[in-house]
């Protein structure tokens, strides 16, 4: 912990696992089954770092963010925030203290704003709760300033609106402004720009970049937009069916993807300028939700490189190049015995 390099680690996540109950295997009782939404995911987030989290829809991205923000209890693993395990935080006051330093931007801007409260309420409330400002003109000033920062003008008008008087992208920016309000150290941003056009999107991305630079703000940035992940992120983690499949510096991941799923993902990105025509995605496989997983690679039934071994053994995570981690038997990775248990991942993404 005393090592200088490690001192800049803000959040250190080890073996994070989250299972949801999924009923029983038969109507007459049977064994209890679980959706393995996140299995044994490890990474660390440094001060001023933007860490991208990309992957298949349903692969566990939102679950990771929700567990880290204390909304769901974890099944296993630990998440040290400045050395303290946030998965074991108890008590309202501690939780409140944590929330003022780690803020979440939710994926669904239509479900995450209270429909009967104004924009002003949504942004001023955290300011007041966390005593960032006193009620009155200072709060108003800060509110208007935040709205302007995210391009919601004129702020006086926007502040008085109810969520259903805003467009999708406008709500998304209200959510982002709300997270910024308390000057947090970390923002867990779940698809914060998915409804924004390129121009406003660039504004928000550049704002994220600037706050990282000026205030050392760190982000876990969940996105489907690989181009924006490349533009903004220092590192990118690729998730598939609850497993960390690859993790590497952003540029390297784009240039030299190692995992077959990452490669599939990159070929599917629209590249209108190259006029390559449409890429038909051939790997239309069952998109797995993992209930009671069997041993084997979770990508095996869609993988173009699948080998016999992949169906019976589960690949572990290994650092196959400096700071480049991958979970795939095409590389020299260990095999995880039986069902994956916490603590098997060595990936320190």
């Amino acid at each position: 912990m005393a090592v200088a390099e490690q001192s800049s680690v803000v959040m250190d996540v080890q073996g994070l696992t989250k299972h949801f109950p999924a009923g029983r295997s038969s109507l007459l009782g049977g064994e209890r089954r679980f959706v393995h939404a996140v299995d044994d995911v490890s990474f660390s987030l440094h001060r001023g770092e933007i860490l991208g989290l990309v992957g298949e829809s349903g692969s566990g991205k939102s679950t990771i963010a929700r567990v880290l923000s204390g909304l769901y209890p974890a099944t296993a693993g630990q998440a040290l925030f400045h050395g303290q395990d946030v998965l074991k935080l108890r008590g309202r006051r501690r939780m409140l203290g944590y929330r003022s330093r780690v803020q979440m931007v939710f994926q669904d801007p239509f479900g995450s704003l209270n429909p009967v409260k104004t924009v002003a309420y949504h942004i001023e409330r955290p300011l007041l709760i966390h005593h960032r400002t006193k009620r009155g003109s200072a709060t108003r000033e800060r509110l208007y300033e935040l709205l302007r920062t995210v391009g919601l003008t004129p702020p006086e008008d926007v502040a008085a609106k109810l969520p259903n008087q805003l467009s999708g992208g406008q709500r998304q920016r209200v959510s982002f402004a709300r997270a910024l309000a308390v000057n947090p150290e970390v923002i867990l941003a779940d698809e914060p720009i998915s409804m924004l056009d390129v121009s406003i999107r660039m504004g928000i991305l550049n704002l994220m970049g600037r706050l990282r630079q000026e205030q050392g703000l760190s982000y876990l940035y969940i996105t489907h937009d690989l181009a924006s992940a490349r533009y903004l992120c220092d590192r990118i983690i690729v998730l598939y069916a609850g497993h960390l499949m690859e993790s590497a510096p952003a540029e390297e991941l784009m240039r030299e993807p190692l995992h077959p799923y990452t490669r599939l993902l990159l070929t599917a990105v629209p590249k209108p300028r190259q006029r390559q025509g449409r890429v038909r995605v051939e790997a239309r496989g069952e998109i797995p939700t993992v209930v009671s997983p069997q041993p084997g690679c979770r990508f095996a039934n869609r993988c173009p490189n699948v080998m016999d071994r992949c169906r019976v053994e589960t690949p572990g995570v290994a650092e196959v190049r400096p700071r480049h981690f991958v979970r795939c038997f095409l590389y020299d990775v260990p095999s995880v015995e039986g069902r994956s248990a916490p603590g098997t991942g060595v990936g320190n993404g």
Partner: protein
Amino acid sequence: MTAQAVAFGGSSLEPAAASDALLAVTGLSVEYLTPRGPARAVQDVSFSLRPGEILGLAGESGCGKSTIAHATMRLIKDPGFITAGSIRFRDVEVLNMSSGALRDFRWRRVALVSQSAMNALNPVLPVGTQIVDALMAHERIGRRQARRRAEELFELVGIEPRRLRSYAHQLSGGMRQRSIIAMALALNPEVLIMDEPTTALDVVVQRDILQQIEDLQARFGFAILFITHDLSLLVELSTRIAVMYAGRLVEVAPAEELLMRPLHPYTKGLMNSFPSIDGANERLEGIPGAPPDLVSPPSGCAFHPRCPSCTGEDRSLYRLQTSSRPELQEVAPNHWVACHLYR
């Protein structure tokens, strides 16, 4: 104004268009009342949709895209009002439909995948029950058959049919979005309006679903209005693209043409602000300036305060840009633009 109506009602654009258009929107205007006055969210918008066509609608956040979608379904609620225009579906005026006809129109004829899809499922019923109920309410089929159809639809959008038993909160954002797409497809609509349907989908799933929808479209010939901020997606997907700014259409062209030869400075700006996954990773600025205020929009061309071609060097052009609103004109075959640079 009339030029626009004629253009997208069809007659001058393509002689046969008017009669074979499934949906023809003409001169549509929508306002929201606000304390400062009416916000003109949609102004004098015209377009038509033919069977088998995919019309893409792009434009910045808050420019009125969802408002067009809602107006087309007659779903605008107080304090919003349709103040002008006509919406004809198979030559029947939607704005005059009785409530019975409207109900039939909304589900069986035109289906909407709304932007709030992620939040649109009933939280206290399993998603499967919701699809089955909808099928049984609108079509003469039994529960078993409806169940089977629901399973097929889930398969189609790439969710395990087992998941029909899940409640909305147990599904990921992308799964909820896909459930809504499945529901919209359930009754074989003739027009499908999709408002940002893929914001929670990774590119692989997105491609897969769009392929499935295109295959269905080839089979059944329905028309699609596809709304998204993602121009690169539209360029691949659509037959034609309409670009909107501050409530108005500013450019309409075949997809390929728009990609190769964007004319409106706003469209050009959009095309130039894409980050990409290859090539140099340069800083991009987007389009400088703030989105316009819809209550008191800029005079003349609404884009002029942000337009790189509005410099004042050419005095007479500048006077036009700042005082007179450009009309949509066909400046090349099927390529319409509203901009004073193309007088």
